[in-house]
């Protein structure tokens, strides 16, 4: 892909002063809808903010396709589980859009325990001329009504309303890490550390358990589920990844309980890279099907692997995201950074993949040309409409060139865990702690 990228930042509710970051404003998930016109973000405070892309207008060509705030609502509130004396965080773990079927938009948002279906609808007309009601709402005395009239719809200022239509709760003992809408648009699944449940979007008081890896004796627990996703085209197929670096593909037609996988994707460990942290860094933090449904991508701590669904024993491509961290694993273990869960994203044509790293860097890999680029999302280094400059990190030991950053200077508090790519165009959304960056490809 071309390196010229037009960048623009979203200001507004996410801006805070430099040194102080409100915990509640930390963005925890980013997701485009199926057309790319809407971009939803969830944060640690349980809020969902939806951005809408402005329609192109001939009068202001420079403002082509900017994203502005469309709707903000509080999705989840902090709760308290009295039975276990546990606080349930309101942090939004995942947002998934439903395919649009009418004028309204629907999305699923989830925290650790509860999934909610939200309807986002617009109201831009108001009925005026009621017979029994005055304009200010006061009731009219029926005896004063002398003539009847038909109410007329008058335009009003656009109002975007978000209302919770379904609440799916009490189905997960452990923390929900993923939700995925089925291609049949009727069901969806939610995955926690040990179980995956299948829901019908209309039914909130019942769900089916389709995967259960909880051992009979919890002392023997060695593996948890880290991510799960439905196949984009085959409504019977889904995958789930584990903390041991394996991905299992399951077919719901085979059995009601899909404990036995149809395919197991696992790459044998490289013995030359063995260390105490081999298992930890092999833990898969995200799994995503390609849009075509032919491939899937897994993200572990140091690399991204692209798998062909027809080949289980090894990936077809492996990309090193930040190999220079391999010698620093002990320190990263000490400061808990080794447990960070990075997400990954495909572009619309499945030719480029993207993921985040530390120091507000994010990486893009072109699968066709095998070129990769490291870019930085920061206010200091990019003004609106400036072109992003590729960054380089030099591993310790070799001489540092000009404009390179040494591994020791990386800021491990500034990390990009959540990224999203527009389904059709070269527009990406990058969440850097409490800031949201949107980058567009400049096309003249």
């Amino acid at each position, binding site marked *: 892909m071309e390196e010229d990228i037009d960048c623009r930042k979203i200001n507004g509710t996410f801006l805070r002063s430099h040194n102080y970051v409100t915990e509640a404003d930390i963005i925890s998930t980013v997701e485009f809808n199926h057309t790319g016109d809407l971009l939803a973000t969830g944060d640690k405070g349980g809020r969902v903010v939806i951005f809408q892309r402005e329609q192109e207008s001939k009068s202001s060509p420079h403002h082509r396709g900017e994203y502005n705030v469309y709707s903000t609502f509080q999705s989840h509130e902090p709760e308290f589980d009295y039975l276990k004396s546990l606080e349930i965080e309101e942090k939004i773990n995942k947002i998934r859009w439903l395919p649009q079927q009418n004028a309204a938009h629907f999305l699923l948002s989830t925290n650790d325990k509860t999934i909610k279906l939200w309807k986002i609808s617009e109201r831009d007309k108001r009925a005026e001329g009621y017979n029994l009601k005055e304009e200010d709402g006061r009731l009219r005395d029926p005896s004063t009504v002398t003539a009847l009239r038909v109410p007329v719809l008058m335009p009003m200022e656009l109002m975007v309303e978000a209302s919770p239509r379904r609440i799916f709760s009490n189905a997960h003992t452990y923390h929900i890490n993923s939700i995925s809408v089925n291609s049949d648009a009727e069901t969806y699944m939610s995955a926690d*550390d040990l179980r995956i449940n299948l829901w019908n979007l209309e039914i909130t008081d019942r769900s089916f358990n389709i995967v259960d890896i909880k051992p009979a004796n*919890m002392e023997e627990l060695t593996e948890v589920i880290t991510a799960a996703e439905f196949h984009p085209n085959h409504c019977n197929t889904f995958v789930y990844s584990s903390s041991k670096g394996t991905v299992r593909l399951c077919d719901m037609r085979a059995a009601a309980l899909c404990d036995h996988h149809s395919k197991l994707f696992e790459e044998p460990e490289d013995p*030359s890279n063995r260390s105490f942290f081999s298992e930890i860094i092999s833990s898969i933090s995200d799994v995503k099907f390609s849009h075509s449904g032919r491939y899937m991508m897994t993200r572990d701590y140091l690399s991204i692997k692209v798998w062909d669904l027809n080949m289980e024993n090894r990936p077809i491509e492996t990309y090193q995201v930040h190999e220079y961290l391999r*010698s620093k694993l*002990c320190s990263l273990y000490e400061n808990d950074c080794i*447990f960070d869960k990075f997400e990954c994203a495909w572009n619309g044509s499945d030719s480029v993949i993207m993921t985040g790293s530390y120091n507000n860097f994010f990486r893009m890999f072109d699968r066709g040309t095998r070129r990769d680029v490291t870019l930085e999302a920061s206010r200091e280094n990019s003004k609106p409409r400036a072109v992003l400059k590729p960054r380089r990190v030099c591993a310790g030991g070799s001489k540092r060139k000009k404009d390179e950053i040494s591994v020791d200077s990386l*800021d491990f508090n500034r990390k990009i865990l959540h990224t999203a790519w527009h389904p059709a165009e070269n527009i990406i959304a990058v969440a850097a702690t409490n800031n949201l960056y949107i980058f567009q490809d400049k096309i003249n």
Partner: protein
Amino acid sequence: MFGKGVKRKHTEVSEDDEETKVGRSRQAPEEDEETERRKRTDDAEKGIIKGLANEEEIPRVVVCGDEVPYHDYAAQRQRVLGLSLGKLQMCRGRSELCLRSYVLITGTLRLIQEELRCEGSQRPVLPPWFGVPVTAADCEDSNRQSPSLVNRGASLPTAHLDAGDGLLPSILPETSLLRASLSQESAVSRLKLEPRLLCTENIPSSANGVRDLRAGSSATEDAQAKLAEARNPTDLLLSGFELPDTPVLLQDLCLDDDFTDIDTTMCDFDLFAPAVLASSRSSVSQVASVPSPGVPSTHAPPPIEEWSSRSLPSACGSVTSSGQQFKTDLSELDHIMEVLVGS
């Protein structure tokens, strides 16, 4: 995320990396060793015989594609072990447990444990003061237990120890006591790793329950506090460090004999107290008789009759009334003595 461990920038952290010496940055010293080795070979060819170079004797291990000296590898392993145990303890202290992190940390611990076991089976060590055949793994394991269990304020040294270290004798008795209690503990009941237990409510309550014991002995309180600390997911792993045929030391030790003069009658008894009272009377180690939090206690608070049978004021009353009774008795005794002596 658990563990608000300080996220340090790598400028601070790189010094640690130099200490552990794992990774590609350690090129220069190894090159020096290489040139020295070549020099020695040259000298040998010239007929000059020198002592064997140390670095030829040092076993080297491959980690992440680099060969590092074994003692560096062992040092890093020790560090990772300490970190892992520390994280698990921090995990337990928080209200919520991230299961994924827990599984990853315990996996790392298991890996280290397996390595230590393998090494232990290869190099048996017999410390003379022990009196019982013990492998290096046991020594290392018990030593490694002590840093983690000690962090709670007990006065045991927290030095990193290798087998054969001079500090070993002073550490061993305490760690033996702890290991004895742990092994008895694991024999008595296995903590069920249900999520609610992992997450909370039993652990603080059991810890409080144990700490509420006013058995009077600071040493036993420390041991029990350590048990409470250890009675968590870490405990299972620590008990996993022990070999099944671990000799149970200090079982006959009656710590209660030293503390019989302490008046515990006015103390607040809870579920665990009756066990303590019973044990103090039967001179069985208190440590063995404390039930685990996972097992519902079958002990009831001691009946009132038991208290009244011990010539104390029947109202388990205030200290002043018992004090007054005591003074009355003393004055009567004095009076009797005066009469007898005739003074």
